[in-house]
């Protein structure tokens, strides 16, 4: 199994750490993983994205030009990445702040009201809610490994937040809405 994912949004949305937790979860189930961020002195609030690959085999190119899944959290990212989802792939997005909704018919499109839901629990869990939504649709890692992934990727002093994160993941799993099913 190989899953190639792009996660893209604003700088403060936890894009990079969502990718990191996914990657760590992959390691926990003995997969090969890669996490390739965009980087640079971008203005804070600028866009950030990360390409994450989980695979049972050696990963050749960590740099991709098409993806199995795109997780999109702002409009500029939508503009850039919608076309890069492989036919038959998945585009998951938070409609909050999106003016031009995706129009492709050859991919699964789903939404998650991450910002809204997070406001109810804890703003910081936004990215976990989105991750939950994704995992509902593509269960590439199981909860046990996610737990281990969280343990590995969070510094020890934040381990008490793991239950909250797991709760957020569950919320995401519940609240995801498939808009276009192929």
């Amino acid at each position, binding site marked *: 199994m190989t899953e190639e994912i792009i996660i893209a949004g604003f700088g403060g949305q936890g894009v990079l750490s969502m990718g990191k937790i996914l990657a760590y979860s992959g390691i926990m189930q003995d997969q*090969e993983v890669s996490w390739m961020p965009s980087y640079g002195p971008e203005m804070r609030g600028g866009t950030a994205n990360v390409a994450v690959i989980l695979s049972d085999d050696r990963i050749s190119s*960590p*740099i991709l030009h098409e993806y199995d899944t795109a997780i999109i959290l702002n409009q500029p990212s939508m503009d850039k990445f919608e076309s890069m989802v492989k036919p038959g792939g998945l585009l998951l997005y938070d409609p909050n702040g999106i003016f031009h909704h995706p129009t492709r018919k050859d991919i699964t499109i789903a939404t998650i009201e991450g910002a809204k839901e997070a406001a109810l629990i804890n703003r910081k869990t936004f990215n976990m809610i989105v991750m939950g939504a994704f995992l509902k649709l593509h269960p590439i890692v199981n909860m046990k490994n996610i737990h281990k992934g969280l343990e590995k990727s969070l510094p020890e002093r934040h381990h008490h937040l793991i239950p909250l994160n797991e709760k957020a993941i569950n919320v995401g799993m519940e609240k995801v809405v498939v808009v276009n099913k192929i």
Partner: protein
Amino acid sequence: MEDVKLMKGNEAMAEAAIRAGADAYFGYPITPQSEVIEYLMHERPEDRTGMVVLQAESEIAAIHMVYGAAGAGKKVMTTSSSPGISLKLEGISYMAGSELPCLIANVMRGGPGLGTIQPGQSDYFQATKGGGHGDYRMPVLAPSTVQEMADFVGLGFDIAFKYRNPVMILSDGAIGQMMEKVYLPDQQERLSDKEVIKKYGSWATTGKTEDRERNIITSLELKSERQEKHNEHLQAKYRKIEENEVRFEEIKCDDADFVLVAYGSSARICQKVVDMGRKKGIKLGLLRPITLWPFPKKIINELADNSKGFLAVEMSAGQLVEDVQLAVNGKVPVTHYGRMGGMIPSPGEVLVAVENELKKIG
């Protein structure tokens, strides 16, 4: 699985330096490699192993701190990215001239000038042909995974001390910034002066004891006859390195009709190209030089006997390709596919380039 970590290439290199028993690191921030010194500062290696970490006032100061500490017989490292490496070249030439071991990593970005902070591979000539003045060479290791970013630190130090010569890790922004699974090496003890002397002889400025002549670190020789002798000695050493230290990886070259040559990030992409090509029925192979100098000349020349052509794929206007041409020496056509300015070629476009080449060759 104890020490499996998800780490950036830059961080893996930094952690590996601590674990290799490095004595000191001197560096100066520059994107995309500032994580190396940030990681080290965060890790407080002075507590873990006694390793010294110092942010210098410039790249030039950093390389000369390395020069001083290396001359004292220590395992020392510095890292930078393209423009910063240019500034270090006088110092690197000095280290080669005075035969000091050290490890220098260049996490390349696109040039020339200030250029872009995105990944590039356009410092190949600088690294392999001696960007600094004078006839010197240094072994150049080109990691293409985060694992290799870690592994080549220990290997690099070993080669550096074996030959008393600077060694370069030539990486790029993509490998430096990406995270992958990495198995970290075990912690090596830092060597005491006595152990260093026992292992590598007493040549360093450790303080002149009564039982020996003073040790001098210098690259100067005003008498040409003697300077030439020194140069001949260096060249003989380089020939020895060329004999012993060539490293490469062959991917499906056995039956390849057409061979890609690529290193670092580009090699990762070409791996995918090989798979894609083979799926389409093109018998592609990939020769990945791991040491860019000494260059795997012999194997490439041999592969030329059974293949129709070579394509060097690199994030540059064409540098590696010259070494491939020199190795092939006219046997079959050698061409080049490159992207520049921080652009990374996609596997798809490389495959198209291959197909075009094959059409031309017929």
